[in-house]
């Protein structure tokens, strides 16, 4: 049984302009100890998917229209906030994109770091404090006993993200959801944070759900990758298969867009057009208007990911029907 199994998740936002279908029939599984990457551009539904698992979706305007997120046999989406609080922060933790705003500026690092222990493990303060010190050392914060007494604004961005990681992992969770954990950091710090997450994963053995829009980050980190576009899963496969045996034109186009892989001096490759308007979803494949392989039935038939190779799903109709080579 997978650790987390998300089935047919549908999420929409009810705005004044109309209903935005942010996530449509998204399904995926994570095994214990596995690292799954979710890649997609802004608005592809990757963050919304994870927020809904953690019960952090603002409702309203957000609404979970259907589906399940079964974690260790329990559907997290069906739980009340009180019920969910037995899982989040204890067995499922999350770190966020912007470490500058994700820590409480009014509380000492110590208070925030030990909070999961106080909430979930009813630990007394001295014991919690010792664990917090160990965690800070583990995430590479030097002079940690002094740092515990400090406030977030006295930390740099990279240090804050280390604190966030320490806080998320202090209860030794089974699953860590990382929502673009390196996006707000500068490049050298990005590499450090990724290395740290790898190291912590080796030590604690938790599963990781890494959300990113950076294919490079995901390829170096994850066992499996899922590509999302317009609220749908386009392709999911083991990392090597996704890059070397691509089964969806969108994934292929994303790879071609990586600047480092392109010939220097030439105009950079970009995917023509813009992401679809989720207020007015098109019939058929959402990528059809921008796809170089489009044929007439792409804009007509419903798309859903199917297994087109072992452990390799693709939502491309042509790949499914014609074994289109990419």
């Amino acid at each position, binding site marked *: 049984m997978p650790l987390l199994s998300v089935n047919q998740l549908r999420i929409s936002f009810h705005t004044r302009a109309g209903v935005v279908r942010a996530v449509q029939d998204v399904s995926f599984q994570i095994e214990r100890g596995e690292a799954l990457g979710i890649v997609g551009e802004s608005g592809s539904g990757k963050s919304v998917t994870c927020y809904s698992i*953690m*019960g*952090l979706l603002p409702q309203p305007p957000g609404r979970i229209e259907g589906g399940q997120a079964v974690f260790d046999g329990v559907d997290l989406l069906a739980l009340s*906030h*009180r019920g*969910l*609080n*037995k*899982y*989040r*922060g*204890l067995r499922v*933790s*999350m770190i*966020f994109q*912007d470490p500058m*705003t*994700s*820590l*409480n*500026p*009014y*509380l*000492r690092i110590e208070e925030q770091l030990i*909070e*999961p222990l106080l*909430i*979930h493990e009813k630990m007394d303060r001295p014991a919690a404090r010792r664990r917090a010190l160990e965690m800070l050392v583990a995430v590479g914060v030097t002079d940690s006993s002094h740092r515990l007494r400090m*406030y977030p*604004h*006295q930390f740099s961005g990279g240090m804050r993200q280390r604190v*966030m990681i320490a*806080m998320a992992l202090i209860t030794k969770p089974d699953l860590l959801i990382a929502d673009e954990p390196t996006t707000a950091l500068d490049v050298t710090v990005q590499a450090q944070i990724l290395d740290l997450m790898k190291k912590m994963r080796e030590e604690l053995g938790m599963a990781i759900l890494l959300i990113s829009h950076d294919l490079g980050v995901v390829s170096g980190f994850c066992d499996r990758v899922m590509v999302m576009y317009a609220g749908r899963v386009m392709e999911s496969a083991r990392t090597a298969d996704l890059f070397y045996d691509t089964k969806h034109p969108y994934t292929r186009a994303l790879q071609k867009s990586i600047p480092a892989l392109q010939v220097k001096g030439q105009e950079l490759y970009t995917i023509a057009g813009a992401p679809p308007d989720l207020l007015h979803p098109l019939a058929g494949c959402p990528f059809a208007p921008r796809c170089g392989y489009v044929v007439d039935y792409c804009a007509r038939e419903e798309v859903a990911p199917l297994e087109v190779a072992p452990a390799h799903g693709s939502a491309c109709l042509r790949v499914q029907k014609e074994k289109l080579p990419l």
Partner: protein
Amino acid sequence: MIRFVARRFLETIPVLFILATVTFFMMRLAPGGPFASEKQASKEVRARMDAHYGLDKPLFQQYLLQMRHLLQGDLGPSFKYPSRTVNEIIAQAFPVSAELGLEALIVALVLGLMAGMAAALKQNTFWDHFPMSLAMIGLCVPTFVMGPLLISVFALHLDWCNAAGWFLPRDRVLPALTLGAFYAAYIARLARGGLLEVLRQDFIRTARAKGAGAARILFRHALRGGMLPVVSFLGPAIAGLLTGSFVVETIFGIPGLGRYFVTAAFNRDYCMIMGSVLFYAAFVIVMNLVVDIVLVWLNPKLRFE
């Protein structure tokens, strides 16, 4: 921190000095004088009274004299209430006003904070709209309407308490409600706004992700930041409440300081005016200093600057 407080204290000296100077000359620019209303007094009597209080001396000399007295903490004699000094009047009336103000402050804080918190946590529901409508009424209805309204309902019709007076503990209820209503309304709106601002911050989402319950999120994570606007407002509010309200004291017949403040101006009771201006100013300055200290304590970012 000690340096900060010491510097702020030193800063109050020029403020009070300038205020005293401006007040002195503005009083003297106003037509009339303390004894202008005593019609029967002959020229000779008037001259002797002026001489007794030193009002016959050149203006600048009077100014120097008054400043010297003020430096010694002597606010001078009252012209309207002979044989009583301004110091005595303030010492006698201030405790009454302070008690009323304190009770009104408690009313304002309890009602205001509860309403504000409920409204912020249940935004756009009945628990937001209902208290906020009441707050709007509280802001709009002046005390001279609120007072008589409360009297007619609770004293005259229901006969729960006296219509006026300041003798029994229950005599405190209506004045405190009347005086506190506006402040409660204001605090409710500030608390709601401040909390809503904090509740949509990223770090609240972090706290939720950690599994913190609603009470923990409110009291541990949101309240500090959310109370900043309320605390800022409390400085001048407390000064205003404790130094007395002319309207409320008049409606309920309370022997407080507010009445002296206002009648002093009508009576051209020079020393009383000066005394009340300086007393109120010193109060506002001290309360603002206290508020600044509390704000620094609440907000660690300020603490290290």
